């Protein structure tokens, strides 16, 4: 009974936020600059949560998430611009293409551990970028222009919410638990009969799928996609959100995505100094709180009540994660 009450409450909240923000956009209370950042927040949430599935929950250090975003962006744009098909179809095609490339990249490289996997995925993302730079069909280095602006608030919001719900439910399922066991101790998981390759590839391609969704949304909001947009920096941004929020905390990733996007919007006018401040903040946060804002915990209202009573317990718990 209590559970269903929670679900109804959540659904009501989801729709309330949708209509409230939709109203603000319609009534032009949110100015265009704020709107761009609002859409970036949604896209970044999808990127961070999907990467957290790979890095935070499955423990596979991936540095090439922007590569999958690029595939999603380009494939969806080819569907809508070159083939004249609908946006929905474009999003699905982009996401599937990213997921398939996730399997292709994942199967051979996921045997690698830690830093080696990081550098292999970084290499793959760079290769994907160079391929787009050298493909005249999609505009080469200049990029693809004239993409219709089909990403609206409804698409963005519901795809973001769907990503969060699907990944959250996946993690709480048998398969998700298997992924977490791979993170905790791969050899022990293997011994317990868990097919680690299968779960690593599954998590990797699921993460890639949603990065593809983010790419499709990005392409159809900004009219223009260029290979340089999906460089190493973009992958790094997503990783920063994951680590800053806390490995293995979905709400942490969401909070970090909002914070990082908000911070870079606030520093927009500083031009060159923006990245200096960004990097300095990052180093300071990492040195003083390496486990991230949330650790591996999830944010909830009941947590707030608990925290107030047992503040000491919270801090020791955070230390043991580290």
């Amino acid at each position, binding site marked *: 009974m209590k559970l269903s009450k929670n679900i109804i409450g959540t659904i009501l909240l989801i729709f309330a936020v949708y209509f409230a923000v939709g109203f603000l956009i319609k009534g032009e209370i949110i100015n265009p600059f704020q709107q761009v950042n609002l859409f970036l927040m949604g896209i970044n949430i999808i990127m961070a949560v999907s990467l957290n599935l790979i890095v935070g929950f499955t423990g596979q250090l991936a540095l090439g998430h922007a590569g999958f975003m690029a595939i999603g962006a380009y494939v969806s744009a080819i569907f809508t611009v070159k083939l004249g098909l609908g946006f929905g179809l474009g999003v699905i095609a982009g996401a599937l293409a990213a997921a398939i490339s996730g399997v292709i990249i994942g199967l051979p490289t996921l045997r690698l551990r830690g830093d*080696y996997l990081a*550098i292999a995925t970084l290499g793959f993302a760079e290769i994907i970028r*160079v*391929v787009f*730079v*050298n493909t005249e069909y999609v505009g080469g280095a200049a990029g693809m222009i004239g993409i219709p602006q089909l990403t609206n608030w409804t698409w963005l919001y519901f795809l973001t919410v769907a990503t969060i719900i699907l990944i959250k439910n996946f993690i709480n399922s048998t398969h998700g638990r298997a992924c977490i066991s791979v993170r905790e101790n791969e050899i022990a998981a293997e011994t317990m009969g868990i097919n680690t390759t299968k779960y690593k590839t599954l998590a990797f391609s699921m993460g890639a799928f949603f990065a593809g969704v983010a790419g499709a949304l990005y392409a159809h909001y900004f009219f223009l996609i260029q290979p340089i947009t999906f460089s190493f920096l973009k992958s790094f941004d997503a990783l*920063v959100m994951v*680590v800053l929020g806390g490995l293995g905390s979905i709400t942490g990733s969401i909070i970090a995505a909002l914070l990082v996007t908000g911070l870079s919007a606030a520093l927009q006018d500083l031009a060159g100094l923006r*990245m200096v401040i960004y990097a300095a903040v990052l*180093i300071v946060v990492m040195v003083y709180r390496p486990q991230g804002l949330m650790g591996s915990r999830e944010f909830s209202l009941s947590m707030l009540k608990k925290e107030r009573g047992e503040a000491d317990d919270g801090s020791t718990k955070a230390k043991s994660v580290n």
Partner: protein
Amino acid sequence: MIFFIQQLLNGITLGSIYALIALGYTMVYGIILLINFAHGEILMVGAYVGFFAISSLHLNFFTALILSMFAAAVLGVAIERIAYRPLRNSTRLAALITAIGMSLLLQNGGLVVLGTDFKAFPQTMVKETYWILGGRVPVTNQQILILAVTIVMMVGLQYVVKRTKIGKAMRAVSYDKEAAKLMGINVDTTISATFAIGSALAAVAGILLAMYYQTVHPLMGLMPGLKAFVAAVLGGIGIIPGAMTGGFLLGTVEAMVSGYWDSQWKDAIAFGILIIILVVKPSGLLGKDTTEKV
């Protein structure tokens, strides 16, 4: 055939620079298991110190080189103290993010302080071309200088690592940090020394690179840094001869791809080779396979 030999020479020149950078990566990785992403930026700072030493202080090439090595060594040790030492006992990922953050900080700090334009690196010697192999293949004195400096540095490094006390301490710490501590080795000093030596080598590479391309720019360390990391992994990370092999090999492959195909693809080919090596022999060309113990 002539063209092939010419490309081979270009490759060896560029490869020797990659090898120098890769040595720094490999030494740091060998000792604290961290991919020091800021290594490429130390190279950039080294190149700029050399640039100002030659153009503003009017020092000669070798004095500028030594000054720049010293500055880079100080910077390397400072980075380790400020950003990496507090994280020595946290997760590898936190350290990696910090390293990338450090790299971004130096890059963008460089863009703010030094400006976004390319500056011409002063040429300290008159360019001379020698014709070898029956007068058909050109070799410049610059190429000879790059190769000679690299070889001197590599021999020097081998001497330090194999024959000196600090080199012995480095090998001990990279083998087992705890045991080294029990044997009375000061681990912190040893790690600092590793950063100092690796950074000094990066500064040398920075000046050679600036000389080779005749320009300096705040982002000049980015791609060579990544490439040198690829070279280090290619040869087997943590292994000094591996870094040299990987560097020369990568430089040669790049020169061949640029010469016979299209220079646009050279980065993709470099990373492609990396992935093939990682999949076929994850420990690198000269690395030994290790199985993880439970």
